[in-house]
């Protein structure tokens, strides 16, 4: 079943059109990779799906579980199961990671009409998940991402993904700023979350990440459109020949 349907999406930022009619369908249980050179509109797509302010959708639509996503506020989208793992997770000084996780999780549950987690249940859940991601407990007491290394920040994103159990995870350049070991830990965390009910959209420049998170479908973006789609072998082909061949196709 289609989880996410992007249809002929046109998006402007400050009078400049970035996406010129992008179409993409992601089914439940699938992992899609979106590759493309700088400026091809990959991050814009992820921001528009999550609802970041500053983008103007001039045409097209985005359906999520059959509902009009563009009609929802960003926090409603989060509660419905849209999760964006940020390329550069922000720091929030003075707010303990644990407090942040609990506030966010309970806000989502409340929006869905579910009961809020009690303190012991919440702590139990966080401990389980953080252990599997190799996240020490004292990291959770520190301010959100404050003084975290690149690897810790990305693991914190994966931790939230595991806690909130979204049905769509968008990973925006997860490999940026990570060394091989940190990348492997984060990717293992993501792989553990693959499930028949959950879809993932992995945005990346490099094929390297896709050795760890193996996609079902690969899309190539250029100049605000998807110009080619294929299986995981398409990523290898790109690695060998580069993006230039697609410039004209766009």
């Amino acid at each position, binding site marked *: 079943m289609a989880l996410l349907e992007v249809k002929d999406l046109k998006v402007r930022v400050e009078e400049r059109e970035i996406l010129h009619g992008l179409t993409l369908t992601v089914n439940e249980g699938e992992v899609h990779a979106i590759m493309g050179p700088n400026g091809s509109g990959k991050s814009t797509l992820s921001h528009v799906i999550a609802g970041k302010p500053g983008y103007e959708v001039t045409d097209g639509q985005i359906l999520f579980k059959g509902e009009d996503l563009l009609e929802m506020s960003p926090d409603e989208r989060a509660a419905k199961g849209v999760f*964006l793992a940020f390329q550069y997770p922000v720091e*929030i000084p003075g*707010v303990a990671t644990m407090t942040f996780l609990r506030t966010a999780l309970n806000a989502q549950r409340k929006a869905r009409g579910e009961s809020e987690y009690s303190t012991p249940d919440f702590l139990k859940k966080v401990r389980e998940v953080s252990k599997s991601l190799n996240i020490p407990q004292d990291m959770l007491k520190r301010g959100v991402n404050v003084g975290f290394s690149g690897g810790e920040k990305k693991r914190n994103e994966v931790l939230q993904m595991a806690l909130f159990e979204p049905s769509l995870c968008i990973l925006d350049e997860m490999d940026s700023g990570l060394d091989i070991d940190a990348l492997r830990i984060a990717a293992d965390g993501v792989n553990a979350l693959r499930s028949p009910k959950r879809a993932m959209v992995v945005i990346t420049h490099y094929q390297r990440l896709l050795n760890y998170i193996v996609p079902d479908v690969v899309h190539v973006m250029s100049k605000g459109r998807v110009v080619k789609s294929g299986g995981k072998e398409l990523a290898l082909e790109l690695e060998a020949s580069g993006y230039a061949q697609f410039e004209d196709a766009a």
Partner: protein
Amino acid sequence: MPAVQETVERVKRIDVDQYRYGFETQIESDKAPKGLSEDTVRFISEKKNEPAWMLQWRLEAYRRWLTMTEPTWARVDYPKIDFQDLYYYSAPKPKKSITSLDEIDPEILKTYEKLGIPLREVAMLEGVEPKVGEEDPAKRKIAVDAVFDSVSVATTFKAELKKAGVIFMPISEAIREHPELVQKYLGSVVPTSDNFYATLNSAVFSDGSFVYVPPGVRCPMELSTYFRINERNTGQFERTLIIADKGSYVSYLEGCTAPQRDENQLHAAVVELVAHDDAEIKYSTVQNWYPGNSEGKGGIYNFVTKRGDCRGNRSKISWTQVETGSAITWKYPSCILRGDNSSGEFYSIAISNGFQQVDSGTKMIHLGKNTSSRIISKGIAAGKSQNTYRGLVTAHRKATGARNFTACDSLLIGDKCGAHTVPYIEAKNSSATFEHEATTSKISEDVLFYCIQRGLSQEEAVGLVVNGFVKDVLQQLPMEFAVEAQKLISISLEGSVG
């Protein structure tokens, strides 16, 4: 304090134009004629059955006040106040003289219940189911002195405090029962000639709290006063005097609310603290006077003089304030570091939204040797408000080894507000070490979007980020107040973005 959770729940439901304390209590009251004259001063003194020396003290202050002019140096703007158009004394009309809580007008008790302040001692002991990891609130007791318009209506836990030797009573009672203490200390920190509003207060103050902690005693519970302005056109002039004798300790909390009214109301309080050798006073305020409506109409003018005197060696005074209310705030809780090795602290969160104007800060006056002070100020400006930190740190010629650390951080929400920092630093000897750090930042759109992407609403996100910004100061508050203050901060900022 079982009331807190409930308060928090109720507080959650209001929006920016629904100040939750904005109700009015219908009771009969006993007022002085409108306006200010020597007769008004005599009227108040007579109402309070004061001794002659007290009346003389007031009259001297009044005569002095006539020669003074209002200060204009603060960064606040308001129409001239007509001091003849105010009531200076208003008391709930007692049916008879009150000896126990049962005889207080039930309407007043209801008011305090609505405010979430339990005046009945039993209410403290019933408690609520404590949450895991939190201290059982029922085990913590707080003695409350409630001031309604001009008079104190109830003081709880008097007997238990008496056993420890602590005197906690309305200052009007203390003037009659402990004249030697009042005469010795009243005006010794804030003299009657200090400034326009303090002098006015000295002439017409009607009630407030008095605390005396004897040598070596650690006050067995938190003391607290709740101030409530109810009457229309009535100024509230309370006077608080706290004395910590040698080696004693006391923690005092103060909370304030007022009904929602279109006209401005004046609040001009004076607080004096005296700490003797090795004594420590911790004074916390959560000020939530009515700030005016979203068009800037109404609200309290809060012109307050608060000063602590570290009179003894190794004494310590700590001010913590959370200021979210009032149309105009003019307030500088200060420390005079007279004793050698004494220390002063000022922790402040000042939030302004709508059309509020805040000019607040502190003065740390180093007189003794090896004295130290610490200032942590967090100003948050939203809406069309103006938020100014004004602080003075000074070391006297003989104050060798004086040390100060100041950190002033301002956070702006939106682009129609202003934050200003005005530090004055004077070191008159070369051994002083003064450090000053200041930052001003705008709340980051990226940080807000990150929080919202994780499921928080816009307002919850602002509340969370701001609470993180002020965390260093919130930690200084007693637990009960910290929880309430945190919620209050989120509420004060509702409607500040978007």
